[in-house]
């Protein structure tokens, strides 16, 4: 099925659209409209009405988040774009910035205007050097054209965008850790409250938004809130979503699809079905930190709410599929090892609890697990989920939760057989 394309409307695989191409397709009209005819508060209201939810993983309503921002408070304030994108299975922001970087720039300028932040940062992961270069070029072009910098389009509003290249570590994507990282300190998450909107970057009011979230803004401004809402296939959803497909599919690509598209359509239509004609066993529907969905969930519509009823989360909408021959204990072990390695080391459940869980899963994989290990694993899950300082360890428990929900018999099977049944 063909779906309307916003973020990918200029997409030509293998190519990047820069200023001229972007302008030709209507780029920066949203910004002009905003600056010339809207007050900052009106922008926030519009985004609120559009129902846009954050695309960084948590799905918090963007307009609501902005409405907490003290935009009239004097002194420095910051907008930060989160392009850390290090959660396994997630690569949509990278594709977006390789496709059409000006969308982010325009979205950021409109957002900066709405929040009245004269300084903005893009925090970009180490492995996305090409994206960083695309952005630097886009920033220069936007400045050249008068869309960015001092006194934008004669409005009196000024804004600078800085590109910050990071040096690895998944925790940098957590918004408060990201702020510490930007400040040149150890990227440990911070205690909330105070929230970034009150004390963020350099202790000043700050809003952190995801790349895709910000890239949607000018489409909302030009198309209107109702139109944006209507793009989704479900009542609760709003807009389109970038789905990054990976794992055992024929086609592992990134697609822009309406929110609410079913898992079945994604797997079997866009993903071209499971590789080698094998059967679908399970998937991570929204990145490494989301509980698995199994074959009985194929009819679940993927939006922020419907998916929670199926026991998972939309997360980053990175859909990683596993075929029938995959050991889900092994998958979970791989994921837990990732989380344990990426722990920042601040709180105990994550720093020491995750390596413990990894060790337990190893016992299963090595055929040395007993009933006691299973009981122990349950206890670990109960006491890590919801108990850590930030959401990293919480996220790590997503797959474990999925394992218990959908594949508990696989754990039992490992114990019974005294080995991994898939090896």
């Amino acid at each position: 099925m063909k779906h309307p394309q916003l973020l990918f409307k200029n997409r030509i695989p293998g190519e990047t659209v820069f200023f001229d191409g972007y302008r030709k397709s209507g780029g920066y009209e949203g910004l002009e409209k905003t600056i010339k005819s809207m007050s900052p508060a009106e922008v926030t209201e519009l985004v609120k009405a559009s129902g846009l939810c954050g695309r960084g993983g948590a799905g918090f309503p963007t307009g609501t988040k902005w409405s907490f921002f003290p935009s009239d408070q004097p002194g420095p304030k910051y907008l930060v774009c989160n392009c850390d994108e290090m959660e396994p299975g997630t690569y949509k922001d990278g594709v977006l910035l390789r496709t059409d970087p000006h969308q982010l720039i325009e979205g950021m300028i409109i957002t900066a205007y709405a929040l009245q932040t004269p300084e903005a940062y893009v925090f970009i992961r180490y492995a996305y050097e090409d994206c960083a270069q695309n952005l630097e070029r886009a920033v220069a072009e936007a400045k050249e054209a008068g869309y960015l910098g001092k006194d934008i389009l004669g409005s009196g509003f000024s804004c600078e965008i800085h590109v910050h290249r990071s040096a690895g570590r998944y925790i940098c994507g957590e918004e408060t850790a990201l702020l510490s990282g930007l400040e040149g300190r150890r990227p440990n998450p911070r205690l909330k409250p105070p929230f970034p909107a009150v004390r963020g970057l350099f202790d000043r009011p700050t809003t952190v938004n995801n790349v895709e979230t910000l890239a949607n803004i000018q489409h909302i401004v030009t198309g209107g809130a109702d139109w944006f809402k209507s793009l989704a296939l479900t009542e609760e959803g709003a807009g389109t979503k970038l789905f990054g497909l990976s794992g055992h599919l024929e086609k592992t690509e990134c697609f822009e699809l309406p929110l609410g598209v079913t898992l079945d359509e994604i797997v079997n239509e866009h993903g071209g079905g499971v590789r080698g004609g094998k059967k679908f066993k399970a998937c991570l529907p929204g990145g490494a930190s989301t509980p698995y969905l199994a074959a009985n969930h194929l009819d679940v519509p993927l939006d922020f709410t419907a998916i929670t009823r199926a026991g998972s989360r939309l997360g980053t909408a990175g859909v990683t599929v596993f075929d029938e021959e995959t050991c889900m204990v092994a998958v979970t072990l791989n994921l837990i090892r990732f989380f344990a390695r990426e722990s920042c080391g601040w709180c105990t459940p994550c720093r020491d609890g995750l390596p413990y869980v990894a060790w337990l899963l190893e016992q299963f994989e090595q055929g040395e697990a007993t009933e006691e290990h299973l009981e122990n694993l349950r206890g670990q899950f109960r006491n890590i989920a919801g108990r850590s300082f930030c959401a990293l360890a919480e996220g790590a428990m997503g797959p474990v939760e999925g394992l218990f929900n959908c594949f508990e018999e696989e754990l039992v099977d490992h114990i019974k057989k005294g080995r991994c049944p898939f090896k």
Partner: protein
Amino acid sequence: MNELLTTEQIEDFRNRAEQLEHPKELVIDLLRAVQARNGWVPDEGVALIASLLGVAAVEVEEVATFYDKIFRLPVGKKVIHICDSICCWSRGGEELAAALQQKLGIGFGETTEDGLFTLLPTCCLGACGEAPAIMVGLKTYGHLTPDQLDEVLATEREEAR
């Protein structure tokens, strides 16, 4: 290379630090700059950065040792990062890693005898759609099979020399 940063770089960073209210925000830029020239960040690099930012060396070290893409030990001319996260794992990442080790004749954390390559595992590179993937320096190679490694290594070897 005997200088960790060129005189112009030092001058430039010093100017930027002076203009910033919070000069410490340059620490990653500086670490990356030293690493770009020197391959890795030696103790003297940490000390140099600390002095440019007007902070204690340990404050730089705290940051340098947090990030896994900053090397505080010598590495080869090029660092090969091979992704071991879930998507690459699901599409032959382990076989690729074994092949890579065998072809280079080194294990993880080791450097080839000619000093050209250091092999390190890494978490997800954001190339999940092109799994399995590796990153050599700052360049990512996706959709790799063990057979294609020879070609990749040849290209990179050529460049490194």
